[in-house]
C-alpha cells in the first residue's frame, strides 16, 4: 500500500495519469466495494478518494486532496480510464460489465457480477466540497487583488469600511463564491466586457462576478448582469451623464425573454417592489459595478439632488404570458423569444389610477393626462417614459383589439400640445418652452419616446409611469442588449 502525500500547495495543473488502466474509487461506494476484487485481476493504478487502504487487495494511491479526481473531471466512482502515452483514450463510469470487459480486453471479467450497477457521486463533486475544491484548484485563475482580513475582522464591516457597499450589507466575495458565480457564464473570467465611466476602467467578467456576489446574485443571473453592464456602458446610454446629473435617475433594467422565468424573475404582483431575489440583485449588481469599478459614487461624480430608491436597484421582467402587446424587446428589434435587457435612465415609478375605465378611449385619455405631467406639464420632447401597463388596464385595450402600436398611436395623438399652454409664463408658471413657439403644436414625447411594458399583478386597475432623463443624443437613449451565456 502506498499513499500520495497531502501537498501543501494546491495542484493547479492537471496531473498526468500513468499509462495503462486507472480506476478511481471510494470505500463508501457500494459499487466500488463490489468491483474491488476485480482490481487485483488486471494491471491497474487505483486512486482511492476516502479510505487510503481501500481496496486492500491492491496498493491504492490516496487522492487525498482530490486533485486527480478534480482535474480529470471524475463525477462518478468507480471510473475506469484507459491511458496511452499520458492521454485518456477511453472511460466508463459505474459498473457496466460489457464496458469493463471491452476496455480491459478481459473476456470474462466480472462474469459473476450483475450486468450493470450505477456508481456513486465522486467526492470531487460533493456539494459540500465542490466550492472549496474549485477555489483550491482554480483560485489562481482569479486576478483580483486579495484583501486579507484578520480573524477578528467582521467581513461585513470591512466591506463598509472600504466603501464597497451601497449602504446595505453585501455578501463577502470569497474565492469560493466568486468561482461559483463564474459557473453561471461560459465567458472567460478575464474577458473585458466594457469600459465603465466615470473612471473609464475596463471591467472583466471576474470583476462583474465579484460585484454580483456582493449584490446577492445566483450564478444563473450573471449573464443578465453582464448584458446590463454592457448596455449602460455604451455612448448611447451614457451612464456618465446619468450619474453626474442632478436629476433623480439611474439605470432601470427591463428584462425580456423566456430566461426571465427560468431564473425566477418577477413580472407579476409587486413587480417593482421587494421580495424577488433576481429582480433586486441583478439591478443591484449593475449599480455596484458602477460604484466599485467605475468609481461612480454619490457626492463625487454622482451629483443627484434627491436621487431615488431605485438607484440601489431597479430591475424587473415584462409579463409576456397573456400580454396583448408584443414585448418591449421585440418592439426594439430583438428576435422573438430572445433573452434581452433594455436599460433606461429613469426615476422612481408613479402610479396611474383609473378604476372606472371600461373602454380604451377613456383609459387612453387618463394615460395621456397623467403622462402630460411628466417632470413638468409645460416641458415637452425632452424626456422619454416607460409606461408599465397593468394587466387589468391591458385587458381594456385587448378587448377592444388595441395592440401596442394602436395604444401608442392613440397616446401620441392625445399628447399634441398647444404652444400657448407651454410657453414660459403661461398659466402663471415661469418654466416652459421659449415664447417664440407660442403658435406651434408640440408633442409631449418624441416618436418612440413612450416605452410600453406589460407587467404587474392580476388585480388592480392601475398602471405606472417611470419618467426618463434628457433623451436622445443630448442625454441618454434606451439601449437593448441580448443576454448571452
Amino acid at each position, binding site marked *: 500500500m502506498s499513499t500520495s502525500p497531502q501537498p501543501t500547495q494546491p495542484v493547479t495543473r492537471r496531473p498526468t495519469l500513468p499509462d495503462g488502466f486507472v480506476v478511481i474509487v471510494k470505500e463508501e461506494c457500494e459499487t466500488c466495494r463490489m468491483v474491488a476484487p476485480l482490481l487485483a485481476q488486471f494491471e491497474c493504478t487505483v486512486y482511492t478518494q476516502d479510505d487510503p487502504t481501500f481496496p486492500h487487495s491492491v496498493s491504492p494511491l490516496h487522492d487525498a486532496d482530490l486533485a486527480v479526481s478534480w482535474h480529470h473531471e471524475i463525477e462518478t466512482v468507480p471510473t475506469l480510464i484507459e491511458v496511452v502515452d499520458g492521454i485518456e483514450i477511453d472511460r466508463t463510469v459505474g459498473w457496466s460489465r460489457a464496458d469493463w470487459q471491452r476496455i480491459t480486453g478481459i473476456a470474462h471479467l466480472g462474469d459473476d457480477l450483475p450486468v450493470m450497477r450505477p456508481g456513486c457521486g465522486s467526492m470531487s463533486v460533493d456539494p459540500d466540497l465542490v466550492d472549496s475544491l474549485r477555489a483550491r484548484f482554480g483560485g489562481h485563475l482569479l486576478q483580483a487583488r486579495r484583501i486579507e482580513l484578520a*480573524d477578528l475582522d467582521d467581513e461585513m464591516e470591512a466591506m463598509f469600511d472600504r466603501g464597497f457597499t451601497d449602504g446595505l450589507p453585501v455578501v463577502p466575495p470569497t474565492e469560493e463564491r*466568486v468561482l461559483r458565480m463564474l459557473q453561471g457564464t461560459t465567458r472567460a473570467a478575464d474577458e473585458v466586457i466594457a469600459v465603465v465611466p466615470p473612471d473609464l476602467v475596463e471591467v472583466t467578467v471576474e470583476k462583474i462576478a465579484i460585484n454580483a456576489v456582493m449584490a446577492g446574485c445566483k450564478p444563473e443571473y450573471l449573464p443578465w448582469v453582464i448584458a446590463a453592464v454592457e448596455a449602460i456602458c455604451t455612448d448611447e446610454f451614457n451612464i456618465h451623464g446619468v450619474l453626474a446629473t442632478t436629476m433623480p435617475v439611474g439605470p432601470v433594467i427591463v428584462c425580456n425573454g423566456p430566461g426571465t422565468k427560468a431564473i425566477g424573475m418577477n413580472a407579476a404582483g409587486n413587480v417593482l417592489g421587494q421580495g424577488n431575489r433576481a429582480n433586486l440583485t441583478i439591478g443591484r449588481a449593475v449599480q455596484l459595478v458602477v460604484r466599485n469599478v467605475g*468609481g461612480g459614487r454619490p457626492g463625487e461624480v454622482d451629483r443627484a439632488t434627491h436621487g431615488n430608491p431605485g438607484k440601489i436597484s431597479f430591475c424587473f421582467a415584462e409579463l409576456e404570458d397573456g400580454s396583448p402587446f408584443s414585448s418591449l424587446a421585440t418592439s426594439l428589434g430583438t428576435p422573438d423569444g430572445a433573452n434581452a435587457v433594455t436599460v433606461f435612465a429613469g426615476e422612481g415609478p408613479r402610479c396611474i389610477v383609473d378604476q372606472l375605465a371600461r373602454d380604451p378611449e377613456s383609459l387612453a385619455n387618463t394615460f395621456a393626462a397623467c403622462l402630460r405631467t411628466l417632470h413638468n406639464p409645460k416641458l415637452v420632447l425632452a424626456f422619454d417614459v416607460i409606461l408599465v401597463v397593468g394587466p387589468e388596464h391591458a385587458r381594456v385595450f385587448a378587448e377592444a383589439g388595441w395592440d401596442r402600436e394602436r395604444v401608442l398611436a392613440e397616446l401620441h395623438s392625445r399628447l399634441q400640445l398647444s404652444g400657448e399652454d407651454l410657453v414660459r409664463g403661461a398659466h402663471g408658471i415661469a418654466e416652459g418652452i421659449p415664447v417664440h413657439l407660442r403658435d406651434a403644436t408640440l408633442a409631449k414625447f418624441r416618436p418612440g419616446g413612450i416605452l410600453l411594458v406589460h407587467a404587474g399583478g392580476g388585480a388592480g386597475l392601475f398602471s405606472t409611469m417611470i419618467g426618463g432623463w434628457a433623451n436622445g443624443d*443630448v442625454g441618454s437613449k434606451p439601449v437593448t442588449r441580448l443576454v448571452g451565456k
Partner: protein
Amino acid sequence: MSKQLLDPSSERRVTERTRLARPTSLDGQVIGLLDISKPRGDVFLDQLEQRLVGAGAAVKRYKKPTFTKPAPVDLRHEIATNCTLVIEALAD
C-alpha cells in the same frame, strides 16, 4: 488563519498632481472659455470674455456638444494645445 476577500474595485491607483502656480498677470495669457452647453452658460462666458480681454488676455471660445457627456478628447487636446488657462462654465 486570516480571511481573504476579492477586491471588487478597479484597483486603480490615483495619481496626485500638484496644481500649477497661479499666474501673476493676465498679460500674454491665452484663456480658453469652455461652454458646456448648459442654458445661459454663454451669457456668463460673454461677460467673462469682455472682462478678460479688457485686462489684456487673449480669449478663445470652445463648446462641448452636450453637457451630459465629458468633453471629447479632440476638444480637450485642442484647448490644452492652444491655451495657457481655461475657464469652464459649469451649469445654469
